[in-house]
């Protein structure tokens, strides 16, 4: 079965070498049959990155994916607190560069109005946005989005294609929160491989809205892949989750860049 990974970080595997880091990530993923890797963020993570930090991290991604054009897709990392810098990076890395998606992390909750110009530009470029979300029992970071925040953003931008990263971590709450937001897919990476996750996602959202990812290298490819291959869902659903849905989600951006999809 073909497997594409929505959610990877690579830059810390071989410190100081983005290309070798990505090479190592791909080598490990290939052991489990993973063929394509969406990668974002570099080595120096900050909750509220400066424009310079954003550029540096995105440069690391650009350098790495340039060495593996057939296997890796880059997403540009933005900080909605600085709209101008974010739009500049979006234009540099996506409109004028090879990246095919947007990554938003924890700088600002995604229901904030600052997101609007970024989402509008993403719609113009026909690229999707991956938004990290969590619902932590002990409380989120100040700028950390919840799935409900993303549902709010999705309602404001029905033409945007959004991914609810981590499904909020607490999948039973996350799935419920985005259920009625048809332009939101869930990314099931980066939480424990708790049994029942994928079954509930397919039951409540349909297999078409579920996308597999690993959140490697922090997470194990294996632990995350187990969420799908161990789930009591049929093979057609597995195929969608592991590959087809992501391929379709990326298709407009890939097509715009003349990439073979």
């Amino acid at each position, binding site marked *: 079965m073909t497997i594409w990974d929505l959610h990877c970080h690579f830059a810390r595997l071989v410190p100081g070498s983005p290309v070798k880091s990505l090479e190592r990530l791909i080598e490990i993923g290939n052991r489990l049959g993973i063929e394509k890797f969406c990668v974002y963020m570099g080595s120096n993570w900050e909750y509220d990155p400066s424009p310079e930090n954003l550029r540096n991290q995105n440069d690391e991604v650009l350098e790495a994916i340039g060495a593996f054009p057939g296997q890796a897709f880059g997403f540009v990392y933005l900080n909605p607190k600085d709209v101008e810098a974010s739009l500049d990076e979006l234009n540099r890395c996506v409109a004028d560069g090879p990246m095919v998606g947007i990554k938003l992390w924890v700088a600002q909750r995604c229901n904030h109005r600052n997101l609007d110009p970024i989402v509008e530009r993403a719609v113009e470029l026909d690229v999707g946005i991956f938004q990290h979300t969590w619902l932590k*029992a002990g409380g989120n970071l100040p700028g950390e989005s919840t799935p409900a925040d993303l549902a709010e953003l999705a309602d404001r931008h029905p033409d945007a294609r959004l991914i609810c990263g981590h499904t909020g*971590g607490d999948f039973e709450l996350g799935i419920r929160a985005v259920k009625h937001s048809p332009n939101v897919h869930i990314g099931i990476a980066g939480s424990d491989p708790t*049994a029942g996750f994928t079954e509930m996602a397919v039951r409540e959202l349909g297999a078409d809205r579920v996308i597999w990812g690993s959140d490697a*290298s*922090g997470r*194990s490819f*294996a*632990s995350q*892949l*187990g969420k799908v291959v161990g789930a009591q869902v049929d093979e057609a659903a597995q195929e969608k989750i592991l590959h087809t849905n992501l391929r379709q989600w990326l298709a407009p951006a890939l097509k715009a860049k003349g990439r073979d999809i």
Partner: protein
Amino acid sequence: MTSPTRRTFLQTGAASLAGAALVGAGTSPSTTAAETSGKDDGKPGGEKGPAPFIDTNVHLGHWPARHLPLGKPADLTAKLREHGVTQAWAGTFEGLLHKDLAAANYRLKKACEVHGAGLLVPVGAINPTLPAWKEDLKRCREDFDFSMIRLYPGYHGYAVEQPLFLETLKQAREVELTVQVVVRLEDVRTQSPLLRAPDLDVTPLPGLLKKVPGIRLQLLNALRTVKNPLLLQRLAAMGVHFEIAMLEGAAGLENLLNGLGIKNVCFGSHAPFFYFESALLKLKESLLTEEQLTFLRDGNARNFFIPPQP
């Protein structure tokens, strides 16, 4: 003299090597091939039958906050057998909140016999904060013929540095019970607000273990939270075993073994709470030698039950 504990577990290992079903879910001691030969180094021998494969971390019973797809023992054992598991050490989720642990442990024993004879090895739950907990311990050993107990400090409200913990280890050692200590069952970030259980801090454990030489102890679900390599190495040097259910990181097993060596790491899935395949695929994600795989799948778990030589 060989203790019943040792015989029981070596027997189940040997039985799985021979592909034979056990009588009474590992509660009937008998001599093993390993004992007969006087050797058991955990390396593959010339035995026939399914390759031995021990899952050291499964549970029976209902998880209080969620339906688990493999929550019924028959479904769990079918999954384990499908993937070639020949023995699984099974605790009970009833051990978390129930106060009548004698009844919970009895139900566990029966469930293992009915649904997993030859596969499931019962691991009794002990809560040393309960009155007369030593009676539960005694029953595990004498009435139920268990060889192993599982502690849940996070759910029972005590810490490693409390005298209660040391006393439990001493009592367990006294009756030759092997101890599994649960570091966590669920990510603290996703727990129900009414069922919050902190991760167990095992930092004081090396100092404590000096006071109970010879104790056989395995930490369950430790490797997501216990990451300090020096602490892990120190614990391993003292004979503490680990399992891989919560091990994360790309090629995490390869990295772990590079730092820790092979002798103290066992296979564990944390099924049915986790998807079994999540642990299984880790054996493929890392580049492992045949010898490492053999130790992981079976050898280390079996060797775990051989008492240290005086």
